[in-house]
């Protein structure tokens, strides 16, 4: 294959990050072992992410494809990539705190994250079954490794293994589905598939393939009933890794889901919409009810993210421009809620040991008033209480659902959000209504302060920035709907 400039330019951010990853391999290998080198690698990686962010931010709004249509660079991709880059930046930035005495203070960590990031960005831009699968694998493999990064911890190894096994299973489903779709459509490009499905009679095998593909991606966004791995992986992985898992890959996989359903399978909305409705209701229910029983805050966040994916899927199930817009607004709030919450969860330490039981938050409002205030804002936002970011996300996804005639789905959704509010309130109760004699450590690194501060500001003032955000999301949704 001959590369020319027209191919390289749309994919420049990915190229830069991929090259950076290769450079980082050298830095990691020759820069010596230990925390100092790890910090150096992380800082370089952060610089690369900022560069990529700036490139995408200033990029042209025109929709371009590259590499024979396998790679799509449109405003939808830009929007989602900005979210992914921001989320990854936050998670990576917080991992270099001097507090993180975990074994993840290794040079490989940032390197693997950058590789996964390239994978995520390719997922968002995937416009062909081949590039889709390649991107998913590129994203997954480094993440399996970082989940098991804490080599002397049984839980971490368990998390890595579990993530790997179930991830491999989901990749298998994705691949099997893709092969059925290819078999029918005779092409791997999304536009070709979209043209092929615009016929009256579709063979059942094709629908089966579509369902397999959707299920495979549902694994990646941890929508119920494909959520089993999430709580264990969240709990077992080192906290900075969990922070990353909770934010960036979800956005990328959601973007892929949108690309696939709205793009390739756009003509058979009636078929996939049912699947998404089922996934949505199951996720909202599992997320809301499962979280109530949890004692570990990371497990709780896992269930919370399952519920959030359920709400986002409710917008997606609408199958409309409005639905796509709703999901984008939702995911925007989601990454900041996730980043803000994990900025605090990462600080939950007692005598240098991480203490992530929910009960460890007892009396936080007395010992760490600012952290408690921050976490309270995050929790209210996740519960969807206005005027915080989480509310607007729910407003737009349910708006799309109601507009598409899915009123029962919206009603189930809002009722589940009330059940969900219970466990978010429980966190606030433990922080504010209870006292403690064993305060958590008070060190507060700049990284966490910055991430928390930015997240709080975004969530509190979301309504001010909503207008330009809507404009951008509107543009992105239009690009998504008309990409072919």
């Amino acid at each position, binding site marked *: 294959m001959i590369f020319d400039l027209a191919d390289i330019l749309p994919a420049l951010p990915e190229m830069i990050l991929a090259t950076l990853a290769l450079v980082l391999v050298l830095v990691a290998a020759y820069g010596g072992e230990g925390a100092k080198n790890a910090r150096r690698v992380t800082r370089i990686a952060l610089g690369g992410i900022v560069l990529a962010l700036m490139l995408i931010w200033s990029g042209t709004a025109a929709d371009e494809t590259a590499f024979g249509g396998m790679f799509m660079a449109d405003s939808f991709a830009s929007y989602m990539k900005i979210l992914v880059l921001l989320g990854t930046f936050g998670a990576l930035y917080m991992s270099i705190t001097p507090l993180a005495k975990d074994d993840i203070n290794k040079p490989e960590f940032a390197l693997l994250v950058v590789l996964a990031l390239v994978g995520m960005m390719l997922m968002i831009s995937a416009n062909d079954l081949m590039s889709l699968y390649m991107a998913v694998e590129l994203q997954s493999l480094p993440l399996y490794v970082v989940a098991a990064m804490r080599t002397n911890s049984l839980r971490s190894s368990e998390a890595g293994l579990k993530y790997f096994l179930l991830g491999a299973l989901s990749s298998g489903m994705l691949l099997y589905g893709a092969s059925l779709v290819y078999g029918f459509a005779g092409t791997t490009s999304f536009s070709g598939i979209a043209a092929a499905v615009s016929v009256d009679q579709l063979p059942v095998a094709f629908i089966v393939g579509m369902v397999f593909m959707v299920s495979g991606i549902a694994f990646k966004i941890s929508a119920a009933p494909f959520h089993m791995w999430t709580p264990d992986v969240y709990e077992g992985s080192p906290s900075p890794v969990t922070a990353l898992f909770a934010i960036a890959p979800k956005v990328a996989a959601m973007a892929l889901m949108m690309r696939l359903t709205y793009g390739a399978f756009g003509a058979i909305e009636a078929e996939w919409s049912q699947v998404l409705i089922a996934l949505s209701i199951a996720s909202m229910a599992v997320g809301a009810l499962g979280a109530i029983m949890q004692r570990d805050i990371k497990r709780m966040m896992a269930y919370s993210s399952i519920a959030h994916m359920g709400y986002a899927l409710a917008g997606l199930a609408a199958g409309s421009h409005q639905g796509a817009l709703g999901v984008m607004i939702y995911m925007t709030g989601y990454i900041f809620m996730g980043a803000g919450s994990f900025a605090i969860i990462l600080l939950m330490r007692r005598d240098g040991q991480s203490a992530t039981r929910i009960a460890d938050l007892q009396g936080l409002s007395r010992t760490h008033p600012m952290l408690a205030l921050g976490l309270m804002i995050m929790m209210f936002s996740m519960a969807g*209480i206005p005027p915080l970011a989480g509310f607007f996300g729910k407003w737009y996804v*349910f708006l799309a659902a*109601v507009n598409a005639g899915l009123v029962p789905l919206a009603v189930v959704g809002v009722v589940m959000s009330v059940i969900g*509010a219970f466990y978010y309130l429980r966190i606030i109760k433990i922080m504010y209504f209870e006292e403690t004699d064993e305060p958590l450590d008070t060190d507060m690194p700049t990284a966490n302060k910055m991430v928390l501060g930015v997240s709080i500001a975004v969530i509190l003032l979301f309504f001010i920035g909503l207008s330009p955000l809507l404009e951008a999301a509107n543009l992105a949704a239009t690009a998504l709907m008309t990409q072919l």
Partner: protein
Amino acid sequence: MIDNWPILSIVTFLPLAGVLFLLLIKGDEKALAQNSRYVAMWVSGFTFLVSLPLLIGFDSSVAGYQFEEKAVWLAGTGIGYHMGIDGISMPFVLLSTLLTPLSILASWRAITHRVREYMIAFLVLETMMVGMFVSLDMLMFYLFFEAVLIPMFLIIGIWGGARRVYAAFKFFLYTLLGSVLMLVCMLAMYIDAGTTDIPALTAHQFAETMQTWLFLGFLASFAVKVPMWPVHTWLPDAHVEAPTAGSMILAGVLLKMGGYGFLRFSLPMFPLASEYFAPLIFTLSIIAVIYTSLVALAQSDMKKMIAYSSVAHMGFVTIGIFTMTEQGIAGAMFQMISHGLVSAALFFSVGVVYDRLHTREISAYGGVAAVMPRYAVFFMFMMLASVGLPGTSGFVGEMLVLVGAWHASSWVAFFTATGLVLGATYMLWLYRRVMFGAIVNDEVKAMEPMQMREFSIFLPLTFLVLLFGVYPMALLDVMAVSIQFVLDGLSASGLPLMAAN
């Protein structure tokens, strides 16, 4: 010049400026606490002063919205920043801005820990309350309406009594469940009308079956807020556990959000459904009036008794609104304002003795009148206003509601009147047991007399209750045109109005 000032926005967001200031002040715990009290007092007092031009500049002969402010928020989506007041919302705005400084004054000595956070919660609460009453955009209304839950949850949960956690959760989840159903209806309305502007929605005709569903959705939310039987059970818990000032605001303003919602949304926007469901509302309200009065009789806790009496009084309000007559709605409005003043004063009365004896058990008192004579006078006055003694604001509201109810159905009027008798019974009995009789509890003897601070809280409330009782037109005039406007809307929708206009 002052005409062009965005007074409503200033009144709404001024308390938030106080919050920023409170976040910045520093000092040791004691100085911080004292400074926080003063800052909150001054900010809320100043907010009240700023809200006075709304009263002075209000033109009660205009049916539309006044002091309107419009700004672009989400361009091209039919959602905008829109504020304004009419005769229905203006009294509530002033009630909110008046009760907030009074409640802050009421918590001067009662709140001793986390004073700064407490004051922040109250100022945020004020912004949310005022914002809700002045919003003329449905989404903005919902933002404020829901956001009220956050500070109130914290006020009950942090500074409340023994079972505060249970009460705070119950309050929050009950209200939230009602509100989210309303949210789904709001989405449907937005989709149908293409805008969330309240005046535009009022002019929009919703299809009849749709109205039915929308009405039920809004009812789910407002019925919890009012609260109506059988979804009132959060209220006694919340009141009993909340600190005195929390109860004052809860009873004084937050309960009115439901009644206000009925008048702003249900009646004007879903007239056919309102007509259809009026008998249901009457039934629920009558059960509330009689049942909760009987329950109040059986209480041994002062605050709980007054809380149940609030449910009964709010039953009058919902009856009045759904008679859809001029007298009924005016009576409901009057009753809401009156109840706002009276119940705040009654909860404060309980707070006064609670601060001294640290119990709310009626049996622990007796003979208080001998020790605190001035307090006894105020308490008696408010108790009589609550019962509906002529010459107090309570009488006017109840009388007008009864007249309206008579137009609707004589049975409704009959049962409503029964509630009045029961109300008089439990209140007078409460007063006798607390105030008169021999002093059995030695601690009562040692109770200190009323302070200047407490006096200055009672005084404005007493003055207003008396003013509205003697000269009800002061309030009725303000509301008349706006109420007529609502009724005109109802008759325009083809309803055979029961009013003897």
